[in-house]
């Protein structure tokens, strides 16, 4: 699956798509693949504050629990609550319908510190190499 060029990425495998001062956040294709079939998500409520680098939610597969880290700080303006009943969207469309939350950015400059698609692809390639070594 291609990594959208207009998104930014974290080392913890979250993506961010910024439109104006609002950022949509999700987990990457690599992350959903590592996790396996997603069966459960826990998301913050609208109005909650999230802080860059801190966990704001959880995605669980049958086997594993994965904390989701905030790529940037801000206030939650929307949560993708349909995932409660259809968590598998995270597997089938991680970069689209599987988005987790939308956040009004407190400090848009934080985004510039994240990886672009090329850098992220290089990063996961090095991760896979490490894992199979």
């Amino acid at each position: 699956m291609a990594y959208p060029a207009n998104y930014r990425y974290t080392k913890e495998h979250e993506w961010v798509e910024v439109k104006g001062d609002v950022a949509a956040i999700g987990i990457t294709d690599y992350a959903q693949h590592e996790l396996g079939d997603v069966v459960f998500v826990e998301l913050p409520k609208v109005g909650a504050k999230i802080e860059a680098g801190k966990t704001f939610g959880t995605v669980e597969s049958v086997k594993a629990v994965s904390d989701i880290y905030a790529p940037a700080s801000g206030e939650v303006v929307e949560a993708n609550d349909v995932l409660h009943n259809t968590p598998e969207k995270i597997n089938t469309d991680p970069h689209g319908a599987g988005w987790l939350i939308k956040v009004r950015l407190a400090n848009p400059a934080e985004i510039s510190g994240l990886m672009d698609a090329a850098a992220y692809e290089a990063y996961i390639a090095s991760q896979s190499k490490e894992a199979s070594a």
Partner: protein
Amino acid sequence: MESVTTPPITELRKTALNAVHRRLGAKMVNFGGWDMPVEYPASGGLVAEHRAVRSSVGVFDVSHMGDIRIRSGPTHGGALAAVQHVSMNDASKLAIGQAHYSAMLYPEGTFVDDVIVHRLGEDDYLLVINAGTREKDVNWVRENTKGFDCVVQDLSDAYTQLAIQGPCAQELLQKLTDANLAVIKNYWFTHGAVCGLKNTLIARTGYTGEDGFEIYVPSDAATSEMVWNKVMEAGAEFGIIPCGLGARNTLRLESKMALYGHEISDKINVWEAGLDRYCKMEKGDFIGHAALERAKVAGVTRALVGLEMVDRGIARDEYCCCNESGEVIGVVTSGSPSPTLCKNIALAYVPPTMTALGTPIYVQIRTQKCKAQVVATPFYKRPKKTVAPQAAANV
């Protein structure tokens, strides 16, 4: 900054089928020092594997399991006496060709490991043990059978063990063997040619709660791969898929089968684990007997129960259990979504006063206390098979 001493990197152990798993694109994990497949995403992953076993058939590489053979020395009966001494079930009740679930205990009545004891011959037993406890178990058996006239052999590396599990397992395996599988009852075994390999141990055992067989073939890579491939070919018509440790865990959990280090350990005794029916106190002395007698009188302070989540949330291994007022009263030993029941289930130790069906238990999931309730176990029981007339005639 001072550097911390890093522990020595020990090489992960591999089964003879390691290359096969990697070729299939399995997600590999370190399981008790073994490089094992946890799931095979290319053929559908954990949930598909779980469903294949419940509805049709799946195959597991369980060669990481260990095998200890105990045979008598010159004196007849030495092996039986040794097995009786180190395990809690009554091996004198086993016929040749029969197996049973048992456990080896510490003098405290807690678990060294759980085992399947097979009676291979008059004075000949095979104990199948867990991967993570192999060395400990072998040492334990050697150490504690010194006074008996028996020979203890560690055969763990001699076998590739495949578990073929599911309602179609018999039909599949029958295509590969001359042994009549229809007459083998649950927890019995036979020897027969499998894929041309003579005298292969074929046991109607497993760790999935489903019908199925475990076969033991020579552990060289060529033979192991040949058998694996033949099983996959023979299973194609049933939609067989390879299954990993992930599905093995959810399958055994639904069937409430204990996992060492979780439901049973060196800190938990037989009564607490609720394994009374596999512990034969009346058979005479064995390691752990005296402590268990005392423990029976004293009564248990915790008991293993099945939980089903009422609130949204998945209970996981080692999460705390609380009562309604929020006090910690127990711990989850295994917890997972159940692919068969589509519910979130768990096994947990709680006080004996909280074991009644329907008792509310609150599981601490991250920052929240999520409601669960005690339910009947096993969570899943396979439908009773109606014996086919042909099979019945052969009995």
